[in-house]
Structure formats: C-alpha cells, structure tokens
C-alpha cells in the first residue's frame, strides 16, 4: 500500500470533514400524536413542537408556546401537565419546560440531555410537592419552586410514560415491564411489581389503587401501598391506555378495538363492546354515564356506560381525520379529541348528540 501526496491531501480533508459531519444530525426526528389536557378553563394541546392554549367553549386561541418564530426544535410527546399555575412539558431533546398557564411565558426549563444516544419520549407529571420528568431511563424529581433536581432514579429500560404520584409515593411505569413505587422525598424504592408487558402509560390512581394496562393482553389493579396485585383481566389485544375509573367501574380498551367495563374492586367483567373499526390506543373518557373512545381509524364513539351499547359513532371531521391516538377528554357537555392526520388539530363534539361544537387548526 502506497500513500502518495494526493492521498495525504484527501485524507487530511476527510479528517477535517468528518468532525464537521459528525455534528450534523445524530438523531432522527421523532413523530408523535397530538395530546390535550383540560386545566380549569383552558384546553392545552401539545402538537409537534408547540403547545396551544384554547378556550374550551369555542376553541379560540389564547396563546401558543413557543411564540411564532421561536422554536424549541423538539417533539413534545405527552400532554401538558398542570402544577399550580404552570403547564409542564417534556420534549424529546430531554428538556422540561414550565410555562405560565395564564400568559404562555416560559418560567424555567430543565436540561437532562447528558445521554445523547437516548431517544425515549420525555414525559412530565407533578404531585403537590414534587415535579417529575423522565428522559431515557432516568426519572428526575425536581423541586417545584426552582426546577432544581432533588433526586433521580435509574430504570433498567426506557421510560415512556410519566409516573403517577400521591403525597407519599411516586409510581413509575417502565418499559422493563416493572411498576416501581418510590418514596417521594428520597427516591428510595418501596416496592416493585413485575407485570406481563411493557408499561407505556401513566397509571390511573384512584382510592389507593393503581389501574393500568400493559403492552400485553391484560389490565391490572395494584394496591398502591403494598404493590400487591388486586386483579388481572385478560383482553383480546394489548391494553395501552390506563383504565378510566368512574364509580365502581373501570373502563379500558385494547389495540384490537374492544372496550371493556369491569368492577373496579374485583375485576369482574360487566360488559365488552363489539369490536370497533380499529385499534384504541388511548384511555377512554367517562362523563354523564357515557364512555367515549377514539380509534386509530379516525372514529369517535359514545358508548352507554351501563351496558356498552353504542349511542353514536362516526369518523370525525367530515371523514377527513385519521389516527385518533390520544385520550379523548369529556367535560361540560363536550368531548374533545386531537387528530394526528386531517384538516383540523382539535375537534369538540356535543356529548349528547355528537354534533360538532367547534374545531381548531393552527395557522400555517
């Protein structure tokens, strides 16, 4: 092998080019579905790299974060979470943001982008005394006043969902199939329950019981104090969204398009709906004795909560929308849904009739 003068020039050039190229890109842009949260009198919707604050009555835009022209240049995976007057956001470039709910101004941000190779979706949640933010395999507990980390917890696999929390414990669902309870002040592990599948949604915490689904064909109820399994119910497909609990019933759906109602205390089956048009990814919403579910195929259904009979169901947005993967929200006589594909980002329908109340699509 001979190295001539020309080779030396070329290799020197390559040596200079490589570091330059290596700084370009590095991670593929992730995509996710838009999510919404209803906080007091504001409907907050996260979509791609922005959050929109809307009036829940008529869909009027109050503010958007970041403001037009600014960019946080990263995907927001989960719905904004309320802590007092802040909306907490987690982005896939491992940043947590606290945004003022009234004004849309950024209050602070927390950067956890130390591990560059990770790509797990980031999620945020809050308790009365602590804020939680996941990035890759790590749960960060932050002090609400400053956003300064109090402690961290390292899971074996990635964390795709924000934890649930009460005044004593934080309950962390992991893709390693484990639900872990940690002490809220110190972060020390209190108990751990290994379930059948990966856990990709925040558990529903109701009266000392954690209700959750898994990327396996089961839904579970776990005692929050001890981690003891209260019941496990079989489903036809993966149960991604955590069950919605109302009264003595828990409602959940699976990726094969089935909706179930079970006894919240015992797990005994009440009813199972006939399969819907396609997969149900999100948690059902419950209001006025009606269960609302949205499907991947773009349909929104209202089911009678007592027997699972269909009250109404249609493809939203004049058959235009597709991939309704977020949880629907039901409140004040309306049901809100965010569409991943279609002409409108947010749609609000009358709970009673299924009539369109308003729709919202950001400019541009």
């Amino acid at each position, binding site marked *: 092998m001979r190295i001539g003068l020309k*080779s030396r020039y070329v290799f020197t050039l390559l040596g200079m080019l490589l570091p330059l190229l290596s700084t370009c890109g590095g991670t*593929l842009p992730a995509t996710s579905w838009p999510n919404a949260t209803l906080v007091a009198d504001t409907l907050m919707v996260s979509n791609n790299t922005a959050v929109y604050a809307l009036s829940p009555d008529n869909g009027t835009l109050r503010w958007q974060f970041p403001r037009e022209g600014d960019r946080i240049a990263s995907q927001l*995976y989960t719905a904004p979470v309320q802590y007092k007057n802040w909306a907490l956001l987690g982005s*896939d470039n491992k940043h947590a943001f606290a945004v003022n709910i009234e004004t849309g101004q950024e209050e602070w941000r927390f950067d956890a982008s130390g591990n560059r190779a*990770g790509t797990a*979706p980031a999620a945020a949640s809050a308790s009365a005394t602590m804020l939680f933010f996941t990035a890759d395999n790590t749960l960060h507990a932050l002090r609400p006043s400053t956003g300064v980390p109090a402690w961290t917890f390292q899971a074996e696999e990635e964390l795709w969902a924000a934890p649930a929390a009460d005044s004593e414990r934080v309950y962390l669902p992991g893709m390693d199939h484990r639900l872990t309870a940690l002490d809220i002040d110190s972060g020390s592990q209190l108990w751990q329950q290994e379930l059948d599948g990966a856990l990709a949604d925040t558990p529903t915490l109701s009266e000392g019981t954690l209700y959750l689904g898994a990327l*396996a064909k089961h839904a579970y109820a776990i005692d929050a104090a001890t981690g003891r399994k209260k019941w496990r119910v079989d489903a036809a497909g993966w149960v991604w969204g955590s069950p919605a609990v109302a009264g003595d019933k828990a409602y959940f759906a699976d990726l094969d398009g089935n909706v179930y109602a079970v006894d919240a205390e015992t797990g005994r089956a009440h009813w199972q709906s006939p399969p819907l048009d396609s997969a149900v990814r999100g948690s059902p919403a419950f209001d006025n004795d009606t269960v609302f579910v949205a499907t991947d195929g773009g349909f929104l259904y209202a089911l009678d909560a007592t027997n699972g009979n269909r009250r109404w169901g249609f493809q939203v947005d004049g058959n235009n929308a597709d991939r309704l993967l977020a949880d629907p929200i039901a409140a004040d006589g309306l049901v809100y849904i965010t569409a991943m594909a279609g002409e409108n980002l947010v749609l609000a329908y009358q709970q009673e009739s299924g009539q369109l109340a308003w729709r919202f699509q950001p400019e541009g």
Partner: protein
Amino acid sequence: MWNQLIIFPFTNTLLLLYGWLGNSFVLSLILLTLLIRLLLIPLTAKQQKSQAKMQAMQPEIKRVQEKYKGEPERMQKELKKIGYNPASMLGGCLPMLIQFPILIGMYRSILRAIPAAPLQMVDLYQAAYPSWFPDFHKMIPVNRRFLWMDLSQPDRLYLPFYPNVGIPILPVLVYLTTVLQQKMMTPPTADPTDQSAQMQRSMMTMMPLMFAFFALQFSSGLSIYFITANIATIAQYMFLNRERLEWNNVKMPGGLRLRLPTIAAAPVTSKVSPKLSTAGTPANPTPAAEKKISRRKAKRLRARKAKGGSRKR
C-alpha cells in the same frame, strides 16, 4: 399493498430471527440481509458474470472500436463476433432495480421492528403476525442496542473524553465497502476520455458518497444492511469468478493504491477479424487464469484417480 408485500414480511422475519438469535437485532439484520442476497443470486450471478466478461473483454472491445471507427455497421458485427452483447448488460441492471424497493422496505422495516417512539410501537403491533408470535409481548421492548449503537438512530460514537462530537463509524465503513466493491467489479476503461468512461467515473465517485450520506442521515440498522450487502456481493463475485481473478494494484480514491483481486484483462491481439482473439472470455482464459484452471483440473483428476483406486481395493 406496499406494507403487505414488503414491509410486513421483512418486519416479521426480522423479529422471528431476533427471537431465534438470542434477542440480537444486529445478528437478525445481518442474517436477513444474507438471506435476501441468497434469494437474489439467480439474478445477481448473471449480472456479475456478464460484468466480469465485459471486464475481461475491455482491451479487445477497444481494439475493435479503434479499428472500425468509421464503419459503425462493421464495428457492431465484429463486436458481436467477440461476444460483446450490451443487451446482456441491460439484463444485468434488473438486480439493481430490484434492490431499491428492498432498500426502502428494509429501512422502513428496521424502524418498525425496533420502535424508539410510541407511534412506531402502534405500527409494530399492527404489522406483527399474531400466528408467528403468540407471546409477542415478551419480546417488547426489542433490544435495539449493539456495542455503542442505537440501531434506530444514525450511528455516532461518543467518546467519554469528548462527548459533544459523535464519530460516524458506520457511514465511513459504508463508504469504504462500497468503494471496494466498485473497484473490484467495475471494468477498467481503455480510453479515459470516452464519454461512457467519464459517466462511469462520476458514478463511481457519487454512489459511495450517496450511500455514506444515507448512512449518516438514517438509522444505523440501514448501515449494517449496506455493509453486509457489500461484503456479501464482494464474496459472491470472488467465488463466481474465482478462476479469472488476479491480484492487481487498484487506484482508490485519494490516489491510494491497494492490491485487490480483480478480473484479468485479456491481452490485445494484433489481428482482429476474422481471427479475433477471445482471450479472457470463459472459453479462452488468460494465461494466468489458464494456469489456475489447469492446476485445478490436475487436482480434480488426482482426486478421481485416488477414489477409483480405493474402490478397486
């Protein structure tokens, strides 16, 4: 249609191999690439043989072209006589065309089989064949790590003492193996000023750069596919043309010279038609190749004799 025909079968095969190979996605990816190459052998072997034939005939073709410069009809006739058939090269383009849908299918299947984000997980659930994976939930999450790599992301090696800059190891390997493959398999042109030679040269410069750019931008799983496919192609080419290979100094990008096994070019004969030399073609190998062939023939004869002898005994 596209999903059903290419992406779903690839995704499910990747996952099936992943389960069989001890939850190693990189091994599953390498094995699937080799299986695809194996299935394409009937097409690629023909292409590679015709490529090798053209490679060996280059000096002879050039000589005919020069001799009958002003007589295109006669030139075509003479070229036909020595076995030059551009149509067979066209047939050889088919495997190239088939590889593009495979490439795109492979890329999308890799991303689907190793979901790095929730949306990809929904898509994976819809793609998986339930009958193939009765306990599919046990495979989730699919391990997408190998050494320093996250196979769902573009490859960058971050050194602990210099964590802000990632070194793209796989894109460099993609570039090098593509150049190597091209240098070994592309016939040397007798006239560098010829238009087709210029086109070939620019293709040879652009193609490896293009693949390296893909590797830089897309998931490192795709880079593993490129590297494995390149090495498999080189190995197949060497095996199919083993009797005509010669070690030669080959000029690499940047003026570097490497000794590589390439097809021996036929020596240019003094007389053309009607006694055109067809040396270098399968029927008339070069002296170097002839030596190799006769050595093999002798070996085979010896083996046969020994066999016959033992039978008699």
